[in-house]
């Protein structure tokens, strides 16, 4: 079964141990409003419009059947709502200002593409990581591809939102060496507001993962106005403290680097005005986490 991916990021150093190739799959069942990979929201291919690359040759206007591309003040403009995703424009855009995001790929093709970096993986104890989007939504493709890499002795990892039935993980985890997941919020109502989905399944899956014997880490993205408060973080820390087998837990600061992606895709960006979490604030939260761990440890010792 083929998969839909946005791209393969080589030389990834943040998605698991060593040097890795991260494969970004298209489609997600959460719609986190701060997501830095908005190109993975939709499971279907879509257009990305890189205005700084456009030389206004206007060739694309000749092939666009829906007036999604038009001339405004001498420059080409893109209106996503009118786009029928025919992709005629991509082929004639020689400057590559219009690009198709999303391509179909078979497990074998993906394996062949990544294979050139196997030596780097082996030397650095790295490997491949499925990310997204939500890789588990392409279960069969992911399962088959992971199997190919595992057979070649390559370390495998997935970055998942844990928002699919645990039975799906039971099919995939035998082919996975390492799992990375987010714990965004404990409060279900707030979680629903910001991501469009309940977190009940997610929390239960974290517990299942903890019991699974699989090596995993959890991260909490600190997002301004969402969970950057003691009120939201303490329940998260409390939840994490109950986990027995977690390898690592870390706080990740929100960054606004995805702003251009939203613009290029023509998707509204609710976090457009937000800046990075200041280092001082992140330090406060790190200290809170350390304090919480210490208090919790002492509490357990007293018991």
């Amino acid at each position, binding site marked *: 079964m083929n998969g839909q991916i946005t791209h393969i990021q080589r*030389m990834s150093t943040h998605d698991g141990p060593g040097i890795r190739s991260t494969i970004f799959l298209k489609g997600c069942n959460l719609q986190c409003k701060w997501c830095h990979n908005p190109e993975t929201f939709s499971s279907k291919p879509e257009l990305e419009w890189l205005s700084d690359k456009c030389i206004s040759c206007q060739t694309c206007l000749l092939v666009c059947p829906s007036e999604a591309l038009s001339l405004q003040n001498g420059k080409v403009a893109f209106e996503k709502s009118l786009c029928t995703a025919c992709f005629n424009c991509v082929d004639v855009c020689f400057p590559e200002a219009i690009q198709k995001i999303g391509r179909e790929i078979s497990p074998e093709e993906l394996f062949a593409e990544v294979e050139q970096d196997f030596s780097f993986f082996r030397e650095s104890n790295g490997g491949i990581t499925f990310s997204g989007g939500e890789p588990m939504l392409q279960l069969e493709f992911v399962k088959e591809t992971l199997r190919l890499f595992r057979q070649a002795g390559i370390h495998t990892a997935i970055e998942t939102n844990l928002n699919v039935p645990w039975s799906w993980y039971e099919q995939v985890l035998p082919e996975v060496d390492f799992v990375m997941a987010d714990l965004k919020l404990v409060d279900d109502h707030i979680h629903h507001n910001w991501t469009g989905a309940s977190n009940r399944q997610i929390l239960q899956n974290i517990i299942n993962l903890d019991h699974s014997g699989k090596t995993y880490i959890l991260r909490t993205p600190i997002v301004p106005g969402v969970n950057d408060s003691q009120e939201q973080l303490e329940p998260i820390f409390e939840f994490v403290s109950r986990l027995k087998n977690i390898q690592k837990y870390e706080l990740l600061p929100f960054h606004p680097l995805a702003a251009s992606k939203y613009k290029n895709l023509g998707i509204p960006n609710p976090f457009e005005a937000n800046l990075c979490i200041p280092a001082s604030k992140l330090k406060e939260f790190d200290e809170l986490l350390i304090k919480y761990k210490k208090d919790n440890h002492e509490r357990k010792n007293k018991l």
Partner: protein
Amino acid sequence: MSERINFKYQGRIDTLKGKKKLQTLEKIKVEGLLDEDDYGRVVPPKDHWNSISNHPDGSFYGLDGWTNNFCDLMEHHPVYVDPNDAFAGRWMYFMSRMRSNKWNPDYPYDHLKPNQSKYDIISGIGDDAHFSPDYQMGVQLGWQGLLDKIEHFRTINNSPEQIAFYNAHERAILSIQSWIKNHIVAIEHLIDIETNPELQQNLREMAEVNRNILSAPPKTLREACQWIIWYHLASRTYNRDGAGGQIDTLLQPFFEKDLAENRIDAAKAVYYLACFLINDPIYWQLGGPDENGKDQTSEISYLILEAADKINTSLNITVRVHDGMDQQLFRKSIEYLVKNKNAWPRFSGDKALVSGFMKNGFDAATARKRIAVGCNWMSLPGMEYTMNDLVKVNMAKVFEVAYNEMLAEKNSEKSTKNLWTLFENHLKIAVDTAAQGIRHQLKYQKYNEPELILNLLSHGPLEKGLDVSDGGAEFYNLAIDGAGLGIVADSFAALEQRIELEKKTSWDEVNFHLQSNFEEVNGERIRLLLRNSEHFGHGNTLGDSWALKISTTFSEMVLEESNPQLRQLFIPGLFSWANTIGFGLNVGATPNGRKALQPITHGANPVPGFAVDGASLSLANAIALVQPGYGNTAPMQWELDPTLATGDHIDLIGSIIKVHFEKGGTLINVNIMDKSEILAAHNDPSKYPDLVVRVTGFTAYFSMLTPEFRQLVVDRILES
């Protein structure tokens, strides 16, 4: 190791570094900008010495011309002593550049000039050095030992020409000794006026060291370093020779003897080594296997790295990477690379260099002795004459000739297949022209510029009474480098993909826009179509296939020039040195979307910006793929992303280095440059006097580069 050393010499080192900074500023002020190595050279006093002509054209040539000039310069050479330094002497004069003409017109090569011009060949005729002396011989014999050797062989080889040869070398040594004596007098004078007791004591020791080695070979680490410095400064003065050697094994016996006799501690050794390294950024190799494959790392290998860290100026230390290497030394070297971000050390890949050189018929022991001691080049110390890094074929120009010929022939089929045939034909002529130039040099260089100083530490010239260029050397492993691989590969790929496979454009349309430098209507669109085609370097692309084909073909053509009967072995490499701008100025717009007169690609590197992400891995794969594979290098010029270059990523960086070498890579030059800093430095270089970049094989102060070259470095880093 540094944590254990109580280093009490930092004040002296800081003073020397501060002085070097001022010397660099003075060089820029007096001599202007220069796209070259820093060399550690200082500006000589104005009008202090001028060369003596022995030819109507105003230049000087031949044994007499060079010997007379060298001896006269040594006699009048200014002295250089700094009480903070462990060693006396600094390089000041570029004797080989003080000539109005570098090739003796009595030995013309006019028959080669048309093709040299047509294919933009740097012939190397009249160029010098670029092979390495055997310092081991020097520190074993000392100056008197070398004089004795001359005396011995003068009685055996006694034709008038040979007698003149020996007399010239004898005069050269005597003049070097006289130069050292002048320094001893200067040191003694400074002892009398120095008020700081510690510095006065340092000067006393410096004087004693120089008295000890004036005739006899060195016996201590300090004496060995000072001896090497004198020889090297003499050789630099003579003809810019910058070759180094296996520095740790060279100095190890002296260090260990000093330790055993309680003459030294680690701090003092680091002080000596720091002063040694700041004297001149010579190409020294560190670590690596001995001739039996056993790793040579010792305590002094670490101390050399530590000394380099103390001075952290422009340095050309190369760490040899091999299977049995000391992993701690490897890691330490990357830590310094990342910590200082000053483009040192470099890394040399033993596996491919040794196996490649063995393909030329050498055994493993000899191949392992061939070490990284030059800008891009390897050398068997004291055993070979090579013309390394001197002879270059601009393959982008060869491509242009072939392309224009195809278009000019009205009945010729326009196809990449036909273009390739023409390219092959012209490349063959170009390589042959380059080889003929080398043969011309071998025949006449002794009448132009004998290697008076390098002969002294070579095995053969004194024994045979022959200049190293004239049959004196043991081996003639002659280098021809190809340049512009990325431009040519991407041009073939763009034509094949866009015209032949996709039919998105036509030969006529591409040609029209090439002729107009993509400046006519629709020109930019077609340029971008071509530029965005399948690049060399991205992995399994059309560009990669073409690059491999070009490299293989070039290498075979170079190898075919070899002549075992004449002991002439030609070895291919891919390297452009600092000629990327000059070569580019001779080539019009190319089908890879490059505009006319823009620089060609650097060495074996793909066109900058070839990879969207994962550029480090792509680069490591791509350059390993196109290695000529016969023991000369095709370096990987690596602009390492500063966000990756952190202490957390030492092992990842190490992995990339190891994998590149495992896949066939030969040499890695690394820059770690913050993009905003390099832009700011480009804007106002004077505010960044300490900023060092590895331009190609050599490092240079960014502020010393010409604006054109600074732009090239900036573009390379911004597009990495």
